[in-house]
């Protein structure tokens, strides 16, 4: 439930969606603001850098606005937004792989790399060493996710990043429930094999949700 200018008239998400479908950009923004923070968290989880995450989340919301007519309400609005985010992130990754990395983007020394890690870790309560350790663990986990085949990666991210149900994932990916289960099974089995290298205990002990 959202309240707009007049507090006496609460506006539901469905009403905002209906108005947005009719071309009301303000209504769309009002609706998207509710999902903005979560989307940003997910984007940061995907790419690891807050600035890139902000760009990714912005692009996702603009794309969602442009293709709102295609949202058929078979899944939650947040799940639909996350599927767009995932798609854009995969496109960015594909483009980045085929493009040479400029020298300016490479950390020149260890101190610069450490500073970069510090900038990307927002939790102020952690000591620099803990923050660096956690950032490394996150990076390892991110690399492990990226090493999965695309279809398995999609299912894993939708399940654990967005907490989407299996039927929702099946509907978004246009496949059967059994296929989703099977992809999830193989993906988790692969990630479990890597668990020793990932050393996820760092992430577990440091993070307070």
């Amino acid at each position, binding site marked *: 439930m959202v309240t707009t200018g007049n507090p006496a008239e609460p506006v539901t998400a469905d009403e905002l969606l209906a108005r947005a479908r009719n071309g009301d950009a303000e209504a769309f*923004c009002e609706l998207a603001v509710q999902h903005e923070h979560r989307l940003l968290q997910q984007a940061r989880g995907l790419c690891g850098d807050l600035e890139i995450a902000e760009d990714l989340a912005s692009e996702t919301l*603009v794309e969602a606005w442009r293709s709102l007519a*295609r949202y058929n309400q078979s899944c939650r609005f947040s799940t639909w937004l996350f599927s767009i985010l995932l798609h854009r992130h995969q496109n960015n990754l594909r483009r980045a792989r085929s493009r040479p990395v400029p020298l300016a983007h490479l950390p020149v020394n260890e101190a610069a790399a450490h500073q970069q890690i510090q900038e990307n870790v*927002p*939790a102020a309560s952690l000591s620099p060493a803990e923050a660096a350790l956690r950032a490394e663990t996150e990076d390892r986990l991110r690399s492990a996710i990226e090493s999965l085949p695309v279809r398995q990666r999609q299912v894993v991210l939708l399940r654990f*990043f967005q907490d989407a149900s299996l039927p929702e994932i099946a509907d978004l990916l246009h496949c059967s429930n059994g296929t989703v289960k099977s992809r999830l*099974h193989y993906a*988790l089995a692969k990630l479990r094999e890597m668990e020793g290298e990932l050393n996820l205990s760092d992430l577990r002990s440091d*993070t307070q949700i």
Partner: protein
Amino acid sequence: MKMLDQKCGKCRKAIIRDAAGALPAEQRLDMELHLANCVACRACSSELRAVADGLRRLSAQPVNPDPHFRSRWTAAVKKAGRPKSWQRAAADLIEGIRLMVLRNRRTIAGLAPAWALIFLFKLTAPDVVGPAPRTVARSPIEIFRALKAGNNMQVTFARMNQDPLPRKAPAAAPRSSRTTTQPVTFRRESGINPEPIFLS
């Protein structure tokens, strides 16, 4: 060496499903009973839970966005505008085709070898077609029909008062008559203008 290397696949599937949050309650009880007595499966379950927790936590890290983040994307949304109706229709059409291909991808994949074989056969099959058919034209309409019938057709013109295909060859025709009865042949190749060829 990990505990997982001790083989016990009794409820491995159930453990993975449980980590994914997709295990029905009735199966979870059986799994928990097994886990109570199996060290290897307990270790497997613990590792999978660690992976699942790690994934969840990765997407739930606290973020402090730039103060102008919201104003930036709202301005971008308002500036972007909605696509025009024809753009939406084109996008819907493309989406429809994509969905159709996605839904029938197994059928398409199944038929692909058959299509490949047919294509290969077409490429490698010898040309068994006989000589091009001949049409005798007696009027412009017939010429038109003959031209319309095929690209590599040979069309023979003859004068109306002459038999274009004499049943028997004239024995010794006078020189003047020979020139009048001699048919003129046009060969029409695809894309090439008709060019008269005089028969001997």
